[in-house]
């Protein structure tokens, strides 16, 4: 009983970390610029396809593809931001939704065109596969790796935002954009970099997700719901909030499926409704 509970906690935490990587970028950009980017998971998908292409066509090792997945998603997002998104910063939420959801559909069709609708195979190196048993709990090696990666990302993000000059500018821009501009902070520049960073993290998340959930053109849509749940429950613009929300949702989702398989898949939504009734702006939200 106790061991199975630990197992559920571990698996749920690992799943939550995947959600965290995929959603943290959206949380920051939404909080900062109020831009509703429903195409966020498209960048995750770009990262996934970069990893698959490098591994299967060029024979790169899995770990070496991860930085490229990050970079490719980041560069693609800047291109999108410069050419399309920036025109709609002052537009209504609906306009932003329409543009970005349209991009999602375009990206789904484009991925199907280039890669087909089939599943993309990814074969992890043997040291990331399998599992080992620790006092009765089965721990997947890859999940452990996932947790490690996410904690490193979390730490790097927190340090960068709390202790660097750039981080201060970003926080100032999130808190009060007009004042930040008035003080001479280059809000647009800070936003572009943050946007690239957030999308890059989604790309990394997409690459890491393949082994657990697979990759096909529907990726950009399939994850959108989960990412939006994490962002709304965590509170806009809060990294800690995204982390807490992702952890909570990952664990409740896994626990629900383990203990109450009949209704398990609803639990994640019940948790969301409950939390939002309690705190409508999210766990750490201010607006």
């Amino acid at each position, binding site marked *: 009983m106790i061991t199975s509970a630990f197992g559920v906690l571990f698996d749920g935490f690992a799943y939550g970390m995947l959600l965290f990587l995929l959603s943290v970028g959206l949380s920051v950009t939404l909080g900062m610029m109020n831009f509703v980017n429903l195409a966020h998971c498209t960048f995750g998908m770009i990262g996934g396809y970069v990893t698959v292409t490098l591994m299967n066509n060029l024979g790169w090792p899995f770990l070496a593809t991860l930085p490229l997945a990050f970079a490719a998603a980041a560069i693609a997002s800047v291109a999108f931001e410069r050419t399309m998104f920036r025109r709609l910063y002052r537009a209504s939420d609906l306009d932003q939704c329409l543009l970005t959801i349209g991009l999602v559909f375009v990206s789904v069709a484009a991925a199907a065109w280039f890669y087909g609708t089939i599943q993309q195979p990814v074969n992890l190196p043997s040291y990331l596969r399998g599992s080992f048993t620790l006092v009765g709990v089965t721990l997947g090696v890859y999940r452990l790796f996932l947790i490690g990666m996410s904690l490193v990302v979390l730490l790097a993000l927190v340090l960068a935002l709390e202790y660097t000059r750039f981080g201060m500018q970003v926080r100032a821009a999130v808190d009060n954009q007009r004042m930040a501009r008035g003080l001479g902070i280059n809000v647009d520049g800070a936003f572009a970099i943050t946007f690239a960073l957030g999308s890059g993290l989604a790309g990394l998340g997409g690459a890491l997700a393949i082994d657990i959930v697979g990759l096909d053109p529907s990726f950009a849509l399939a994850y959108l719901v989960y990412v939006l749940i994490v962002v709304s429950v965590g509170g806009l613009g809060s990294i800690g909030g995204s982390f807490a929300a992702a952890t909570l949702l990952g664990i409740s989702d896994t626990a629900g499926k*383990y203990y109450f398989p009949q209704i398990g898949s609803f639990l994640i939504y019940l948790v969301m409704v409950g939390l939002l009734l309690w705190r409508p702006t999210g766990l750490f939200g201010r607006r």
Partner: protein
Amino acid sequence: MHASFTALATIAAAVLTAVSAHAQQPVKIGVVMSFSGQFADPGAQIDNGIKLYMKQNGDTVAGRKIELIRKDSGGVAPDVAKRLSQEVIVRDGAEILAGYDLTPNALAAADVSAQAKKFMVNMNAATSVITTKSPYMVRTSFTVFQLNEALGAWAYRNGVRKVYTLVSDFGPGHDGEAAFHKGFKDAGGEIIGQARYPVANLDFTAFLQRAKDANPDGIYIWVPGGPQPAAIGKAIAERGIDKSKVKIMGQGELTYEDALKSMGDAGLGLITAFHYDYYHQSAKNKAFVQAYNAEFKRNPDMFSAGGYDGMHVIYEALKKTGGKTDGDALVAAAKGMAWESPRGMMSIDPETRDVIQTVYIRRVEKVGGALVNVEFDKIDNVKDPWKARMPK
């Protein structure tokens, strides 16, 4: 008098012209299935099967040219499938309906076939009830009950006593569950736990951990194609479920070609029941796969087999009727038809017009560095058990 004679002569001439034109007129076949959307790939494979059959056997049967009219139902859309089937008959003059990849679409089009009295070849949709909806329909794919009830009985015969079942929470998944339970429990087995996972589920760890903790000696899984088979295969390996002690069983989709590629060695040892695989060892299938590879640069799958054998039924039935295309004659010609297909011996049940075929039990093994489904047991001449139980 004179006027009416002229009219009569004109009509007679017209009838004569029609009759003589009849011999040269093409047989139009309306092929209704998904050529776009989520199910575009299965649609393409069915179509490849059709194309290959026509390439190998020519496009003229009993003196009449075969002409295909392809209509795209674009996914699960019974209303669209029904409308297209009507259109293709009324407007384009199709005399035979074929294709039908999805159950709701096939059910909707069955009405059209029944009312217009048109021969209909269901090349894929696998729910048992479909063929009862039109007396002019035959099926060349399989039924979920056919495969999974056979698998349930096989499991008990091979020493499995306690099974946990895990199925996708929608129609075909429920059918798979019911069929396996029926076959396994009738043989004497015990279902010690069961769960249905949501259709859009992504992470399977929790479900499989629960299955493992129930301590079964077999786990039955029903999963549609797409991304889930690979996710399940990997999760089974990651949970450390020992396949030498716990038999993991499912319908063939669990180990289809792309799924095995994504699973890698995690897929080794999975047991599935299916009616066709490109790795099936027979001279007929080797030639089929070779021709298919040359033509389409990929391996055939169950969809291709459904399309290929569906065309075979149409060709042979037309030969028997001498090119006549009325529904009664064609369906009578198709009833009881038996032939060797790439999948092995198969036939059309004269009573139910459904497919009778061999169910192969396969295990995933590594042959020459690649993972394939190796057949190690088979059950011959399996009928759809669901219809056998129906009151006559």
